């Protein structure tokens, strides 16, 4: 037991060191991709949080957009300091999700999927239609970045991808820790019950609707936070950035990685980003990206429906069996 704990601590420590060292081993453009990767990890993990209750949404990327727009407007129009604006963005996302939960949770399964898509499209069309304050089809530009820090020796310019990477890494790690705590609490267990036995859960007095709403609101808040992180780094957002195509990418990450474990979606988004940026870009096949994603989606659903995460224990067992095969 104690041995395992040391092993776990050693693993955690090496992970921290690796994540801290990582940007210094990359080129400038790879550092930028790394920033997006960290933001996408938060996006797909918040998506998984909703999936815990068994509902699959097609409006999650729009909730990311709600956070992005709200945070950008809070900083630009209302003059909020950027970190406060980001929190405001997450809060607005949560509030919009709470309002949407009333119509959407009258539906389940496939109807929820279509309903969430429709609700998302309505929000996207509102951004497109109302030039003031959303900027219409061209979106918002010149979104303020985080103010530079200049405390004597400590000088940080958040326009630099490495600095922004560390900032995102801190925000995302904290968010993931919160999501992890929630999942491991009795709330997470209730989500499990709502997913697999909602009738039974309701019969023992669980307000399943309330738990579904909680999952949607929390998931949307973190999606909104990821959108805010995105908006203040890129500096420009528009309705197209949050369309169904982007949603399909999130869906692909979740399906490729799997959603049963905490690390599954992270595995999915990391693997596909590497495939995207390293393999496809090197081979000059970026045009074929949707083709590759489509083929991957189909292949995984047909042949590995539980995702890459289902391969990991098998690999681990294989590794363990080798020295111990005489015993078995």
């Amino acid at each position, binding site marked *: 037991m104690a041995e395992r704990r040391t092993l776990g601590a050693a693993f955690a420590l090496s992970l921290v060191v690796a994540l801290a060292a990582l940007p210094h081993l990359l080129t400038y453009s790879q550092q930028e991709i790394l920033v997006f990767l960290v933001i996408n990890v938060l996006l797909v993990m918040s998506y998984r949080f909703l999936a815990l209750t068994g509902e*699959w949404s097609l409006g999650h990327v729009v909730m990311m957009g709600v956070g992005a727009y709200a945070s950008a407007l809070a900083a630009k129009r209302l003059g909020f300091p950027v970190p406060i604006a980001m929190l405001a963005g997450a809060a607005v996302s949560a509030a919009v999700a709470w309002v949407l939960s009333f*119509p959407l949770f*009258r*539906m389940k*399964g*496939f*109807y929820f*999927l*279509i*309903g969430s*898509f*429709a*609700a998302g*499209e*309505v929000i996207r*069309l*509102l951004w*497109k*239609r109302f030039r003031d304050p959303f900027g219409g089809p061209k979106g918002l530009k010149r979104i303020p970045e985080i103010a530079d820090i200049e405390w004597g020796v400590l000088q940080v310019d958040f326009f630099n991808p490495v600095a922004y990477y560390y900032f995102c890494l801190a925000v995302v790690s904290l968010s993931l820790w919160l999501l992890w705590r929630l999942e491991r609490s009795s709330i997470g267990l209730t989500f499990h019950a709502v997913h697999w036995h909602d009738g039974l859960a309701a019969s023992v007095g669980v307000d399943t609707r309330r738990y579904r709403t909680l999952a949607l609101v929390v998931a949307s808040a973190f999606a909104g936070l990821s959108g805010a992180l995105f908006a203040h780094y890129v500096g420009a957002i528009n309705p197209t950035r949050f369309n*169904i195509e982007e949603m*399909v990418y999130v*869906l692909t990450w979740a*399906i490729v990685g799997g959603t049963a474990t905490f690390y599954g979606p992270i595995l999915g988004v990391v693997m596909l980003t590497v495939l995207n940026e390293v393999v496809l870009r090197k081979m000059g096949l970026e*045009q*074929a*990206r*949707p*083709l590759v*994603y*489509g*083929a*991957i*989606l*189909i292949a995984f*659903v*047909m042949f590995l*429906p539980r995702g890459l995460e289902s391969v990991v224990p098998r690999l681990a067992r294989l590794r363990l069996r080798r020295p111990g095969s005489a015993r078995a």
Partner: protein
Amino acid sequence: MTELLLQTIVNATYAASYLALVAVGLVLIFGVMGIINFAHGEFYMLGAYCVVALYADLELPFLLSVAAGLVFVGLVGIATERTLFRPMRDNPLGGLVVSIGLLLILQSLATLGFGVRMEHIPPPSQAVLTLREGVGIPVQRLNVIFAAVLLLGALWLFLHRTRWGFALRASAQDPEAAALQGISMGQASRIAVGIGAALAGVAGALTAPLVRTFPYMGHSVIIAAFIVIIVGGVGSLEGAVLAAVVYAFVHTFVTTFVDGVIADIVGLLLMLAVLIVRPTGLFGSRDRG
């Protein structure tokens, strides 16, 4: 004002006709297989590109190109059923994901084959039929309306007057009971997806000279078709046709008298309202999946 009103009615009828073709195919596939085909808009797009390749590029007769579109997309549908949909029968999430995968693949193939640019297709007929002073309909649009009525009539006869039609309706109503009666589910699925895809393909082929033909043209069509099948009640063919008419009229009128984006919003809100109040649709009675 009367002219504008009448003209809008004419335009809405045209929109309803090709939308009904697309939506009926979608309902047929869902009814028999329990799968919502997200790639249905891409079947429509493939039909349009058949016309681009055969009529605009090779200068074959328009009617022949449309027929080729119907057959080709029908065959694509049959191949899709065998390889992708059959393993996902009655697995809504799996079916959703494979059809999204297919959507991405077909879009990429169209982009790689024809480029992302909009295709210019010279309309086979420039004639405009004048109904009265200030109200007219291009013959090309009129042909779409005729073709839709003809094809939907033929489909109705097929479903209500032939053995295979009975088999198809039985499989949609109760797959297990149908299978127990000796109906081959594989065969029923193949026919349903084949016909459904062919209808989308022919709608795309017929409207290719009238709309903007480009690899992502399926997007707006699939959203409209989703609204139609939800409002009509998933699984109800008659409901889909009626809902196509309702939606086309609402959308065309709001577009004409307010603006296009508001019309899209109204359409989506209509669907949300139906989902909230009566999830089985205005004309549907059954809930599947």
